Each structure stands twice: as structure tokens, then as C-alpha cells.
């Protein structure tokens, strides 16, 4: 065994000392705090306002906390607020959005992941052309296609129905999702795919048994992208559905912009928060997974 020797050391040794209040730290944390405040303040105002009664709001102290906390505006926003002719609040819109979002998310991700897998691993004839068209599709502005799609849906007898909107969302999610999945599958080691082929697995066998279990991160990313994207969609919702099947965003707009009577700021604030709650929850629940998923897609492994 080697002798244990301890030298008497002078000069710099061990970890380098760091000052808490260095100029760099002050600048860094100062900026972070400013930015955080900038984003948190409007949210604070919304929450506070939504819990005040109208008389209190008229006093004009936007930033002051509510003197008398009330949840009446929330109840009204959910079930009583008037949108044009009907007065059943956001609830109908919420359920419509749920019925639009769930099938759209599932369909678009299912199709896009298979597309991406086929493009990445099975070099079929015309794959490059197909991929180029898809990429191109990702850059076409939606507005250009609004009216042609109205005609197509009408010809198919789906115009105004939820099914029609689901189809539209599925199609528009396709380019970016396919790209996402293709790049992810390309980044997986090619030899795994080859090994599975030698082991006699076919197209679906490899997809379900080998690729899917390794793709949880990218599926998380896709779900978040699609849920928030489709939930927050306004344009397609207002164009392709009828009032009784309007999604939540359109209902929210109609409540906030209704011209009858006084503007009930507290109800509007509550309605807005409720609408934003779904994407917000998704972010909070899967925030960690999301970041990990993006990194996993970008960097190998």
C-alpha cells in the first residue's frame, strides 16, 4: 500500500471561492426577477379581479387584493354567462373542446408517428418526395387553405360538425408532427432496427415492440404540442363549426365580447383563466417530461 502523505499546501487549493453578490450574479438574478414579474403580474391581476365583486372593481384599484373574496364570477363564467343568445356559460364550449381535442390528438399522433417511422426506417420509393411535400406543407399559411377546406368539408357533408374539425386538426398537425417523429426515429441507433429485422419482426412488429417503447419522450412532446395547439385554436373552430359546437376559445370570445349590458370584468377574467387552465395543467404536470423530451429529440440518445 502506498504511504499516505499530506503536504502543507499554500496558495490556491480546493474549490474556487465564489462571491454571492458578484456583478454577474446581480445582473443574472436581476434580469430573471424582472422577467418573472413581467409575466406574473398580468396573471396576478386576473386572479385578483376574478375574485372581486363589480362594486369593488369600479373603485379602480387594479392591483389591490379583494376585500370580499367571492367565487360568484367563476360560477357565472362556467354556467351562466351569455354568449349571444344562449346563457349557459363556458361549460358547453368546454365539453366541445374536449370532444374535439381528444380524438384530434390521438389521430394526429398515431398517424404522424407511423409516418415518421416509415420515413426514417423504411426507405420506400418516393419517400424523399413525400417528405419534401410534408416539409413544404409545414410552411403554408393556414389562411390560404381556409376556404378550400370549407368547400371540401361541405362536399363530404361534414361541414359544421365536430368530425370535420377533428379531421382538419389532424391534417394540419401532420407536417410538423411527422417531422418531429421522423427526426426522433432517425436519431435512434439504426442497428436496433436491423437487429429486429434479422429477428424476423415486420413493419408493425418493429413499430410496436421496438420503436414505441423507446419513444415515450417524443410522444410526450407531441401530446403537449397537440393538446395546447388544438385547445387554443380559435380560427378553425370559428370557421368550421356551428354555434352549438363551438370550442371553448370561441365561447370565451363570445362571452368577453358580448355587447349586452355592462362589461363584467370579474366574469371575463374568470372565464379566461378557466379556458387557460387545461394547457396550464398540462405544462405543470409534464413540464419536466417536456424539457427532457425536447432534449432527447435534439441530442442523440
Amino acid at each position: 500500500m502506498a504511504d499516505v502523505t499530506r503536504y502543507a499546501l499554500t496558495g490556491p487549493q480546493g474549490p474556487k471561492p465564489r462571491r454571492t453578490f458578484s456583478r454577474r450574479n446581480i445582473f443574472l438574478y436581476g434580469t430573471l426577477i424582472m422577467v418573472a414579474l413581467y409575466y406574473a403580474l398580468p396573471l396576478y391581476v386576473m386572479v385578483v379581479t376574478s375574485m372581486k365583486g363589480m362594486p369593488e372593481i369600479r373603485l379602480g384599484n387594479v392591483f389591490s387584493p379583494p376585500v370580499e373574496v367571492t367565487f360568484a364570477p367563476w360560477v357565472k363564467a362556467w354556467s351562466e354567462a351569455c354568449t349571444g343568445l344562449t346563457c349557459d356559460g363556458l361549460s358547453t364550449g368546454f365539453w366541445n373542446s374536449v370532444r374535439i381535442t381528444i380524438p384530434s390528438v390521438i389521430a394526429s399522433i398515431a398517424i404522424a408517428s407511423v409516418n415518421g417511422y416509415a420515413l426514417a426506417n423504411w426507405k420506400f420509393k418516393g419517400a424523399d418526395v413525400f417528405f419534401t411535400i410534408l416539409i413544404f406543407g409545414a410552411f403554408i399559411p393556414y389562411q390560404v387553405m381556409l376556404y378550400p377546406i370549407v368547400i371540401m368539408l361541405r362536399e363530404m357533408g361534414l361541414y359544421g360538425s365536430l368530425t370535420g374539425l377533428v379531421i382538419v386538426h389532424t391534417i394540419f398537425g401532420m407536417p410538423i408532427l411527422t417531422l418531429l417523429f421522423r427526426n426522433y426515429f432517425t436519431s435512434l441507433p439504426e442497428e436496433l432496427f436491423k437487429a429486429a429485422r434479422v429477428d424476423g419482426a415486420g413493419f408493425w412488429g418493429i413499430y410496436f415492440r421496438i420503436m414505441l417503447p423507446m419513444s415515450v419522450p417524443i410522444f410526450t412532446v407531441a401530446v403537449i404540442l397537440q393538446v395546447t395547439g388544438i385547445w387554443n385554436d380559435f380560427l378553425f373552430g370559428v370557421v368550421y363549426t356551428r354555434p352549438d359546437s363551438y370550442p371553448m376559445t370561441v365561447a370565451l370570445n363570445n362571452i368577453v365580447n358580448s355587447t349586452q349590458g355592462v362589461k363584467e370584468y370579474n366574469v371575463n377574467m374568470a372565464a379566461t383563466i378557466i379556458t387557460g387552465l387545461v394547457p396550464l395543467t398540462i405544462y405543470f404536470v409534464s413540464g419536466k417530461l417536456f424539457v427532457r423530451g425536447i432534449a432527447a429529440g435534439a441530442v442523440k440518445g
Partner: protein
Amino acid sequence: MNNSVEIKNLDLEFGTVKVLQNLNLDIGAGEFLVLLGSSGCGKSTLLNCIAGLLDVSAGQIHIKGTNVTWAEPSERGIGMVFQSYALYPQMTVEGNLSFGLKNAGLAKTEIAARIKRAAEILQIEPLLKRKPAALSGGQRQRVAIGRALVRDVDVFLFDEPLSNLDAKLRADLRVEIKRLHQNLKNTMIYVTHDQIEAMTLADRIAIMRDGKIMQLGSPDEIYGRPINKYVAGFIGSPSMNFLEGELSDGLFEVGGVSIPMAGYEFASTATTSGGATLGIRPEHVVTGELVVNAPFQTDVTIDLIEPTGSDTLVDCEFAGGRFRVRMDGQAKVSVGDTIRLGIDPARASLFDRDTELRL
């Protein structure tokens, strides 16, 4: 000879890049063939063609007498071991081994029996319930070999299976693979660019360059009678010394030195004069007491010494060029010493200067 794998007129192109050109290769049943070549020469591509993972551009591949050119990889009766192991990360070792068998629709008892046998041969029984992430590199490679083993195939394809391992483990697994081959007597095609692996494992070695097979022969042949200058320089470490000179009437002249080539076996009797390159392996140069028996002797001054423990490599100047000599590790020499070298033309190689082919 009873051939196990026959490759006929094989071409492979990636777009406009011709990777394999008119390649012909017959591999006997039970033979251990090593494909050796520098990076990018098409070894993996050839292996992938045999496995059916790449569609060939032209030519045929026969395995056990059946034309499998259009067959699926799983129908060819091959097992493949990849450089990166390529174990399915979400399955246990057992799952990895049984995946192919389940796909083939084998009975449960048969699957269990085969896994047991492979696990015994490779000594991975305690690992069967673990995931690949919980294995060391050597263990992973064993599992990867096991995955080929359970398939009970006639032809094993190895694509640089040991190159991700450290030197010690590589040497151990090399021996294991050799033993495996002796016991199983399957045909094995083994890609590597480690020439020690090639020399120790192979029944025959195929040296590849730019998608063509330069020389195919036993390790002895390749080492002793390289067919051209490229093969000569590629095989052997430290690599062969080359002297550029003139050959005339059995006398090789270089930088004012004449080396009589008496005893050298010419490949053909046609050429006995003209520009030529003489190749001498550092380990074929004799020093010390042995020099007196050598047909050609000369004195050189040592420039540089590289001790490696077992041997000492000595750099010197000879006939106007650099020359390396391998001496015993015990040799007492130092820079500036003058030593006497002996060269035996019978163990040297002569190449044409222009065509670089063996003379």
C-alpha cells in the same frame, strides 16, 4: 468444396457511389472468414448485403445452396452481431434472446430450452432477468452473441463485435469466440479492422480495399506472401519496411547498397529486372549472434528506440531511407550505437514499382 455462402458478381451502389464492385466470394461450410480492411472499404456493407439488410444492385447471394438474393433477413438462416450490440433496451436479456424466436412462432418449451443452452454456453444465466442498461460492455456483447446463437443458424455474421471493448476484454472475448467456433462449427463471417483479431481467428482472411477483395488466403499466406504492396503494408505491426530501388539480374540495388535476392521465390519467372520495391518486415531482420547466418549483412546507426516491454523497436537509417527493426526486449542498445543487421531475402517481398504487384 462444400460451400456455405457464395457471393457472385455482387455490386452495390448508394446512388452514384459504387461501394462494392463485382465481388465474388465463396465461403466453405464451417469456415471462419475474416473481412479485414481500412475504414470505409465496404466491409459492413458487404455484411449487410449477406444479411439482407441492404438490397443489392446486381449479382446473387447463395446461402447453403439456396439463392437468397431476394429473401428477407429472417429467412436466410443467418444470425448477426452488431458493433453497438443493438440490444433492445426495454426488454430483459431473456426478452432480447427470445424476441426472434417468438417472431418465428416457436413453442414456449423450445424457446426456453434454446435460451437455456445459449445462456450456458455464454455464461449469462445470472443476467437473464436484467435489462441491457444494467450490464457491462462485455456482458452486453455476450448477450448480443447469444441472440444470434439461439436462432440456431448456419451462418454467423459479426460486424466488429469487439471494437467497443477495452483491450483486455477484447482479448478474452476473442478467445471465447474462437472456442465457440470450434464447438459449434458454424460458418462465421467476421468483420474487423484489428489485424490481431484477424490473424488469430481466421481460417481465411479477405483483405478488402475500395469495395474489392485484394487478397483472399490463410493468415500465413497473407502475412508471408502478400499479393501486393497495399496488403503487405496493411498486415503486420509494426508495418513492413519498404525500400524503393532497381532490380537487375537477381540483385536489388537501393541507395548504393546491393542486396542479392538469391533464395527469393519469384511469383513468376517473367520479370527479373526493372523498378521495384523491397519489403522487409521489422521482425524478419536479425541482430546479434544470428547475423552471421544471414545472406545479407550491414551496419547501421540507431536513431530512436521504442521499448514495448516484450520487444524493442529500433529506428535507423538504411540505404537512404527509414528502417525499423524489432529486437528482443532484453537487448541492451542505446541511441547512437552501431549494430549489425542481417536480412534473409527468402522472407522478404518484392513488388513491381508501378503495378505494386508481387514479383
